Structures are given as C-alpha cells and as structure tokens.
C-alpha cells in the first residue's frame, strides 16, 4: 500500500530565491534534508505539503500525482494525506491535546469514540498517556514536540514531513526524544522527509542525507558517505564540531 | 506595495472644496446681525410659526427701532424645556397656554403673556387625497397609517381634543415631537394622514392636501407670546418685537400665513 515519493524537476521561487531539486524517497525510507538556514529546506517541506505552489516540476506519491505545474494539477493539502510536524509545532491552543491528536481522524470523518481511542493510544506511545486533558500551554517544549509527532502519525498519513523535530527541545531531553523519533520513523511505512539544520542529527536519523545549500542539492548519499567525504565546507565544519 | 507619497496630498486637495463649501454655509446666517450692529433678538417660536415668524422677523429688522431677529423653532414643549434649563432667549411664542405656563411657573417671564394669533386644526393628507379621506371618522380606518403630534405638543393636545369631540379613536403609528415633524411624514409619503394646523396646510403648498374639520368639532388654538426676563438683547427690544407682532402690521403678516386674529 505504501508508495514512493518522487520530486521531479521541482522548482519553487520564494522572494528572490529559488529552490530546485530532483529527489526520490522510497516507502519506509527516511531522507534527512540538511542545510544552513535560508537554504530552502522549509520551502521544500511546504511545497511537498501543498502549502506553497510549485513553479515547475512534479510531485508524485506512488501513482498519485500530488502536483504537476505543467499539467495544472495541484491537490490541496487536505487531499495529500500528508502528516506534518511543523517547526513551530502549531498545536491548536484552544484544544486539549487528546482532541488535538484526534483532530486529523475527526476531520476525515472518524466517529468521535473511535478517534478518541486511537488518539489515546498514540499519546501513550509517545509517553503522554496520562496528560490527555492538558492544554498545549501547560506542556514543556519536549512534551509539546511529542504531541505534534503523535498528531501527525495518528491521522495515518501516506507521507511524513518533519521540520526541525528536535529544535524545540532542550539538550537534556534531546537524546530521549531522538530515540523515540527513531523508533516511530522506523515503524512508519511511508516515505519520510526530515528537515534539520544540524548535520549530526541528519546523520543520526536519516537512511540517506541530502545536503541543500542556496536552493540546490549539493550532496546526496548515506550518512557514512556524507560524513566521510563532506562536499560542503559547512557540513565538514558542523560534523567536526558536533 | 510601497505607499503612494502623493496620496495624502491628493486627499487633502480633494477635501478642500467640500470643506470650503460647508464652511461658507455655516458662516451664512450668523453674519446677518454679527459684525458691529446691534445684538439680534432671540425668539423661541413654535414650529407651526416657522414661515410667519421668518416674515415677522424680516419686517421687524427694517422698521424704526427694529433689530435683526433670530428664530429658534421646535415643538412648544421642547422650547419650554430648553428655557427652563436656562437657554438664553428674549421672546417666547408658544402654541398653547400650557407650555407658556410652564415657563411662567419657572419665574422666567418679564411680564404677562398676551395672545397674538389663533389657529384651527385640519387633516393633512397626501396631494390629491389618494386614500379618499373625507372626515375624521376615516382616520380610524385599518388600512391607513396615521401619525399624530405627541401628547405634550400643543398640536397634539388640540388634535386629541378634536378627535374626542368627534368620538373617533385613532391608533397612530407614531407620535412626533412637533407638528412639522408629523406633517413631514405625510409629505414624505410615509404616512397617509395627520392632524395639523390649517396654517400648516397652507404653508405646505402643493405638498399636502387639506381636509377640513367641521367648525362644531374643531378647536380654536390660541397662541400666547411673552417677553422673557433676563432677555440678552434687553427687555425693551423684546417688548418692541412683541408689540410689533400684535400690531396691525403683524396681524396682517400672520393672516398672510393662515393665522387668525386672537
């Protein structure tokens, strides 16, 4: 059932800047996209999620065309069945987290009781089973990050996008969260695009690493390949320092 | 999008013409007595006296010992309330004795009130009388929208007296604050009929048609006029105006506007 994500000839202009790339992510594979701030990583995520339109190129998931600039096809974010963990989390502030996690299920028509049950399971899987009644403002950065992850996964998407999933978390909690992430990413059947500015994180979580600088992919390879022979001085510096 | 720097200047330029126009309008009547001449006389007059007192004021300004006259027009009960609250005026001309008595009771008169004109009531309907109203009884019809001056307005009291004399019960759709407001509802076409003074029907010209009320049911409205104590223009000037209003010349002007002798 799970399909591969393909980005072909994708080009997105944002202000005076353009992102161009070709990339394929297999089902079950985690591609970590790493690069300095302003390189175009978030633009990439928004384009795949359907929040920013392509200027050129195609995005397909298996045999479903999510977007084709030339052919005039653009599926709305709702129709793409994509799970997104945003850098700023974006938990709905007026909802209890159990309702937030159930939001995707309810939006797609699941009955209240069933959605509540599945949400409860996911909260338990991220270690927050007993905090379901809390509101986002009452949680720590790490807890909120876990809720965001649970919410994205609970809606059972075909494709998972994560933007700086460890950025909101303090150093002490980071290791535990990284392990949690690794576990769930491994279990996720579809393709995963993980955006990060931290090469050590990319190398730790990705099956492959794509280095993006100034809107283009400058290196694509396994973590070992990238770590052994970093094509970019920036990557070399970050890996050495980490 | 960068803000257009010419924008604010254009707006100011565009506003200047209408502003100048409004300023000119506002300046108009105040200049009539203003610059260097004697203080204008301030007369509070019932709204049914609108045209008559404008004419009387204009005539008074030209005679020997006359001064310009400024008239404040409203329902007599409104004027009485304003005077009691301390509004400065020289003369009060009311449409009934009740409202003038309120002012007298407040100790505001310089001398006794004297009658200066009388009036009678009439039914006012839309031009051409499209609803076929012929008498007071017609006013009770369900299909008509009838307005009346409010009970505290002298015309309202007279109207109710006339209706009571005829034994007719009217359910008005609105109670207006003065007789001219009631009349305007008919001229605007919003109401089918109202009861006003015969002088109002005359003053409205072709904008209403009058339906006469039989003399045996009609009331005679007596208009009193008085000089106010503490008159800003001076009690003498005020008394001269009152005398003028009650003179033969004054009565002629009032008759021209549909009023009868007191």
């Amino acid at each position, binding site marked *: 059932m799970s399909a591969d994500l393909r980005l072909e000839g994708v080009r997105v202009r944002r202000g005076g800047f353009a992102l161009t790339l070709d990339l394929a992510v297999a089902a079950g594979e985690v591609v970590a996209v790493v690069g300095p701030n302003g390189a175009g990583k978030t633009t990439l995520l928004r384009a795949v999620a359907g929040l920013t339109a392509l200027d050129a190129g195609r995005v397909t998931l298996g045999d479903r065309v999510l977007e084709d600039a030339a052919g005039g096809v653009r599926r709305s974010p709702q129709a793409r069945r994509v799970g997104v963990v945003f850098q700023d989390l974006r938990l709905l502030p007026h909802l209890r987290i159990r309702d937030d996690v159930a939001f995707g299920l309810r*939006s797609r028509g699941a009955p209240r009781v069933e959605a509540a049950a599945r949400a409860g399971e996911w909260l338990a899987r991220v270690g927050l089973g007993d905090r379901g009644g809390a509101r986002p403002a009452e949680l720590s950065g790490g807890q909120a990050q876990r809720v965001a992850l649970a919410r994205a996964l609970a809606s059972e998407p075909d494709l998972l996008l994560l933007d700086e999933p460890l950025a909101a978390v303090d150093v002490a909690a980071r290791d535990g969260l990284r392990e949690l992430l690794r576990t769930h990413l491994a279990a996720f059947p579809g393709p995963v695009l993980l955006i990060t500015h931290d090469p050590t994180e990319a190398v730790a979580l990705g099956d492959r690493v794509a280095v993006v600088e100034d809107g283009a992919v400058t290196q694509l390879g396994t973590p070992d390949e990238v770590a052994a022979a970093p094509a970019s001085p920036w990557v070399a510096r970050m890996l050495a320092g980490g | 999008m960068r803000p257009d720097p010419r924008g604010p200047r254009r707006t100011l330029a565009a506003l200047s013409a209408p502003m100048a126009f409004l300023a000119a309008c506002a300046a108009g009547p105040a200049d009539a007595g203003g610059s260097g001449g004697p203080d204008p006389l301030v007369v509070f007059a019932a709204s049914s006296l609108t045209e008559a007192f404008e004419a009387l004021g204009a005539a008074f300004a030209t005679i020997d010992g006359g001064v310009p006259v400024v008239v404040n027009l409203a329902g007599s009960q409104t004027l009485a309330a304003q005077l*009691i609250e301390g509004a400065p005026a020289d003369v009060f001309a009311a449409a009934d004795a009740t409202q003038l008595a309120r002012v007298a009771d407040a100790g505001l008169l310089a001398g006794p009130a004297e009658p200066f004109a009388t009036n009678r009531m009439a039914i006012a309907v839309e031009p051409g009388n499209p609803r076929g109203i012929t008498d007071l009884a017609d006013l009770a019809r369900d299909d008509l929208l009838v307005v009346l001056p409010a009970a*505290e307005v002298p015309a309202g009291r007279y109207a109710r007296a006339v209706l009571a004399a005829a034994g007719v019960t009217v359910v008005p759709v609105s109670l207006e604050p003065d007789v001219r407001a009631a009349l305007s509802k008919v001229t605007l076409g919003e109401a089918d009929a109202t009861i006003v003074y015969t002088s109002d029907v005359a003053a409205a010209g072709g904008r209403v048609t009058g339906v006469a009320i039989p003399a045996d049911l009609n009331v005679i409205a007596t208009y009193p006029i008085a000089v106010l104590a503490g008159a800003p223009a001076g009690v003498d000037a005020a008394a001269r105006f009152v005398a003028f209003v009650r003179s033969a010349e004054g009565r002629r002007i009032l008759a021209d506007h549909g009023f009868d002798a007191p």
Partner: protein
Amino acid sequence: MSRRDREGAGRRDAGLGPPRGVAVLAALAVVLIVLPLVGLVLRAPWSRLADLALDPAIRTALRLSLTASLVALGLSVLLGVPLAVVLARVPFRGRRIVRALVLLPMVLPPVVGGVALLAAYGRRGVVGGPLAALTGVTIPFSTAAVVLAATFVALPFLVVTVEGGVRQLDRGLEEAAATLGASRWTLLRRVVLPGLAPTLAAGAALAWARALGEFGATITFAGNLPGATRTLPLLVAVELERDPELAFLLSLAMLGISVAVLALLRDRWLGGWRGGDADRGAGGDA
C-alpha cells in the same frame, strides 16, 4: 512603593517617556469626558430609583430596547462575521471601496442614516416602494424598522472589530489543520472561530451597545410610538420635555449599562485583545 522602587522607576524612564505637557493635556481630556458623567450621577434623582422598575412606560421601553438591540446584534453577528472574514481574507477587486462603504454608517450622522433608510425602505423608497405596492407591507413605524436602524449602525462596529481579529489570526494553525485533512468548513468551525472568540465577544459588546443607544435613525425611520418603536433613548428625549428628573434617571440607567459593557470589553477591542501587552516593553517587566 519603596524608595528603591521609585528610583528604579526613574532610572527605567530615563528621558524616554512622554514630556510632562502631554500628561497635562491627557488629564484635561479625562476631565472633559468624566465631568458630564459625574454631573449625571450627581443630578439624577436617586430617590426615584424604584421608578426604573415600576414605571410602565420605562418597562415597555426597556423591553423594546433590549429585544430590538439583541435581535440587531444577532443579525450583525450573522452577517458581520462572514463579511469580516471575506474582507480580511479574500482579495477581490474593489475590496477597499466595499470596506469603506460598509464602515460608512459609523461616521454618518445618525439622522442622515435615518433619512437614507427612508430613501431605501420607506413607502416611496427604492425597495420599500415596490414592496408596499406588491405586498402592502410597509417597514417604517414597525419594530422591524427599529431593528433595521439598529443593525445599520451596529453592523460596521462588529465588522471592523472582527476584521482586525481575523487579520491577527495565526494562519499557521490553519495550515496545520489543513494538512490534517480539515475541510474549509471544519477550518472555519474548529480553528478560525474559536480563535476569534475573544475578538468576537468584544465586537459583539460594542455592536450591542451601539444598537441599544441608537436615536437619530430610529426616530426618523421607525417613528416614536410607545411599545412599538419608543426605545429607551427616545423615551429619554420625550421625558426630558415632560419629566426632566425621570430623563436624568433613565440617562443614569443607560450610563450604568454602558459601564457594564465596557467592563465586559476590558481592553479587548480593535485588535488589542491581548490587553496590557503594550506595557511589556524592552525592559521586560513580566
């Protein structure tokens, strides 16, 4: 405040606050507004307070005012929220003109509003004329006319407040909800409207107060008949000429209602709905 606090305050201000003259003018502004209100409180016949509940004319006018203003509020919310959302979110040609037109009743003199309503809905009006000719239904002189006049003046207040609130919403939340599969209706119902709740409350309070206080348009368009169209403000005008003490008492009552409305609002209006944030400057007191 201890000496240290006062010195601290001086150090914090250190030549950056407004000049002293500004404070004097500000005080004058306060006096200008507060003095009439104090006058009202002092001159009202407190001994007759019971009349507010007992006098049948007052009870009738009060019931009419409350009913009409609440219906006007309902209409304002029903029509105003969608308009605010469209003005804030949908870029169409002539949007600025439409916004200016919709806000016009806020600056129009009320009696002019009444004349305009007559021109449209009166018996010889653009809409009212054909309506009367075809159905015999006339709008002026009815409670419906009171509601119409009140809505005409109140709706813009709601629109301007809510539009500001819509513009301040976090679009990111809607993006997140969209990726979770929320339809446009679900977005509106579960993300936008809950986010608007405080601003909507403020706009509603403002609109309701405006509807309650409307006079010029009401007396011109709806007329002045006890029970049907003589609202509280109209009653005040009538009583001022008949029983001035009662007029003062009624005015005091309406002042009380206005104070209650402001208490409801508590700083939250025209977009400043996180009231008090302006105090948290670079110094960081919070």
